[in-house]
């Protein structure tokens, strides 16, 4: 974790949708490394025989999942034309990978994605209207110990510790904020699996990551985007 003295880190928010969701996290990193190099902006590099960009990504997203709000931080050598940076970067992207905005981070912002605390996921259902009571009951529990299998390993978690809030947006959409810290990241599909176990009849058609949050000094969640001056 380094704190840059000067205002020299740009945080990019990006979307990922369509066929490119099948590209894994490491390959998305490689994609952006090349895109940054192509764009010609004056990014900072490490020293040595094979210099690398000083680039860090937030919480990895599983293969096959869409996102409206993922981020990476890029350390700069000198600042580019911030008014055009989103457009210039998008010229180097492909269909389905899109820079949404760029934030010139405040001087005191922790550079590096260890600051991520929570994530919003947006779930799409066939019809939620008959399950509203059940959903409310589910999220109102003090504890919900849930056992699930991921990668052939049985995991047990108290989901209520890692689910922060939920919001039914309409009959088909629900937003849930969960723990996304490196220590306690809750995968989005665990929530729907638990809801189905709990008795929900509605079928989850798909879900996508909506945004990522850090916490301010009082512990309130702040979108990673809002840690500096935002350029659209």
């Amino acid at each position: 974790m380094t704190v840059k003295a000067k205002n020299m880190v740009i945080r990019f928010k990006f979307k990922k949708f369509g066929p490119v969701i099948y590209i894994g996290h490491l390959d998305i990193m490689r994609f952006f490394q090349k895109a940054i190099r192509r764009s010609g902006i004056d990014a900072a590099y490490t020293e040595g025989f094979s210099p690398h960009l000083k680039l860090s990504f937030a919480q990895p997203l599983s293969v096959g999942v869409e996102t409206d709000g993922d981020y990476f931080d890029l350390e700069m050598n000198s600042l580019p034309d911030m008014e055009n940076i989103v457009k210039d970067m998008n010229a180097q992207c492909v269909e389905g990978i899109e820079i949404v905005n760029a934030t010139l981070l405040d001087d005191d912002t922790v550079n590096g994605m260890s600051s991520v605390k929570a994530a919003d996921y947006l779930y799409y259902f066939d019809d939620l209207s008959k399950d509203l009571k059940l959903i409310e009951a589910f999220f109102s529990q003090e504890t919900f110990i849930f056992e699930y299998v991921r990668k052939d390993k049985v995991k047990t978690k108290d989901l209520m510790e890692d689910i922060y809030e939920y919001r039914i947006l309409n009959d088909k959409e629900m937003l849930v904020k969960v723990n996304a810290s490196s220590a306690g990241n809750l995968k989005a599909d665990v929530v729907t699996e638990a809801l189905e176990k709990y008795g929900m009849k509605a079928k989850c058609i798909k879900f996508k990551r909506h945004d990522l949050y850090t916490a301010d000094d009082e512990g309130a969640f702040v979108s990673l985007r809002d840690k500096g001056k935002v350029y659209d």
Partner: protein
Amino acid sequence: MRKTALSHDILMTVDKPARYIGGEFNSVNKNKEDIDIRFCMCFPDVYEIGMSHLGIQILYAMFNSFEDTWCERVYSPWPDLDKIMRDNNIPLFALESQDPIKDFDFLGITLQYEMCYTNILQVLELSQIPIWAKDRSNDDPIVIGGGPCAYNPEPIADFFDIFYIGEGEVSYRALLDLYKECKKEGYSREDFLFRAAKIDGIYVPSLIEVKYNDDFTIKEFTAKKEGVSITVKKEVETNLNDSYYPVKPIIPFIKATQDRITLEIMRGCPRGCRFCQAGQLYRPIRTRDVEVLKDFARQMIENSGYEEINLSSLSSSDYPELKELILYLIDYCNEKKVNISLPSLRIDAFSLDVMGKVQDIKKSSLTFAPEAGSQRMRNVINKGLTEEQILEGSRLAFLGGWNKVKLYFMLGLPFETDEDVVAIAELCEKVAKEYYETLPKEQRKQRVSITASTSFFIPKPFTPFQWASQFSLEDFRDKAYLTRTSIMAQLNQRSIKYNWHDTDVSVLEGVFARGDRRLSKVIYDAYKNGAIYDAWNDYFKYDIWLKAFDDNNIDMKFYTVRKRELDEIFPWDFIDIGVTKEYLKREWIKASEEKTTENCMIKCNGCGANKYGAGKFCFR
């Protein structure tokens, strides 16, 4: 929004789904309504291998520069997806449009190595295109083969409608124009193929008949229709300065085997090593001007974002302006934070200086390819690298701080004796000794590390060694064993590491390299019995192949160890590569006499390739 041919569930099941989604940066999408010809280019191996191939990128750039053509790509699905596609009857699709290949006009398959032949059948079958050319109808795509293995296309002749012999930049436009004309006139496949056969470089196997002698050697080639020529002339791009080049290369999402820019500096090679097929096929030698290369390098660095650039040619040390090019690249790449991956250069003060600038000396190693251990054997193969040059190069490198040396050799070369094999070990020992004699004890930071690798020599068509008998599997094993024990007998054996290649696959490669049309059925049977991805050790199943040869009553030894007479007609003799059979014969005889032939930049040896009138080093 682009679609995917495969469902979400399938893409979530298979390994590396990004192999199948297309949409890479610099990949080309066109509107189907605006084009006349849909061409699908195939490398019959997995995506990461296929995407590393420069040739396809060149042709992709060329085809897509044609307004009436949309060129897309396809690679072999990995066995996990292969099974799913068969089980669910999903037709193989092109990456860009995700449309089934069976709906295309052309399927062009590059033939880079013999062991990909079963993968060709996989691509055809998954595409739901009849495997045998004779079973295809007007609605099926025209299946074209090209690349180095097309210079002996006979083992796979029955699977292809057309082979393109030579460099793709030259005749494809004429072929596409003919196709459009035929479409306008009411298309018939047969008529198109007949007319295509008249274009230079185009070979239509169904129009040439091969007649055999009783012993299965070839008696003659005859035309099946009047007006079909029984010789096919290789096509050569005469001017590399304004030929198509992929200055906007497709950038794969997943890491390809060659994860870097490839800058092709020249074609052809003046050295005339007698085992080397590329050295003969790509004659005459042609270079790209250094200013053109600088411009390509700049454009490709800007358009790709790659972190590394690699110079490609058969013999980069022979590129006349190499020094200027490398010094320029070092400056430019340093500024752009791009690494230079050097080709294997003749070791001298300049190359060591350059290597020291672009690599970490502690990690990098020095590479020599003496190919044979003894000077006698190096004269036989015409490898103009002497022991003195290797030792002097090593000495300079040791003084410069290197302590790792890699040496590449071949086993089973024609006229090879046990002494020649033992000489491999002795040469390694001499290099090790050179280290200890060059550096006083206090300057030796680490022990010297020498890696000797051997591959088995496989005689290839259009080389002076096309007449040579390949050694048997047992001989190969004995030779590898002798190499190993000889290395272990050396004083510095602990500093020498020895690697060798698999033997089974070398035998099969030898069969296909000099094979004839009788092998199509063997390849088909082996494929139907489960042979696929033969170039991959984990998938290669020798027993399937043995059974396929057995079932067809074909003896592999006919193609490998059999002695060939000087006047034998070879299956590939109907192809004219410029280099004459007479020249190859002279070279074969000189090899037996241990006589060398000069670098053709110094003296023309009359190989015949100058008839193309290309390149400034070939004189008429």
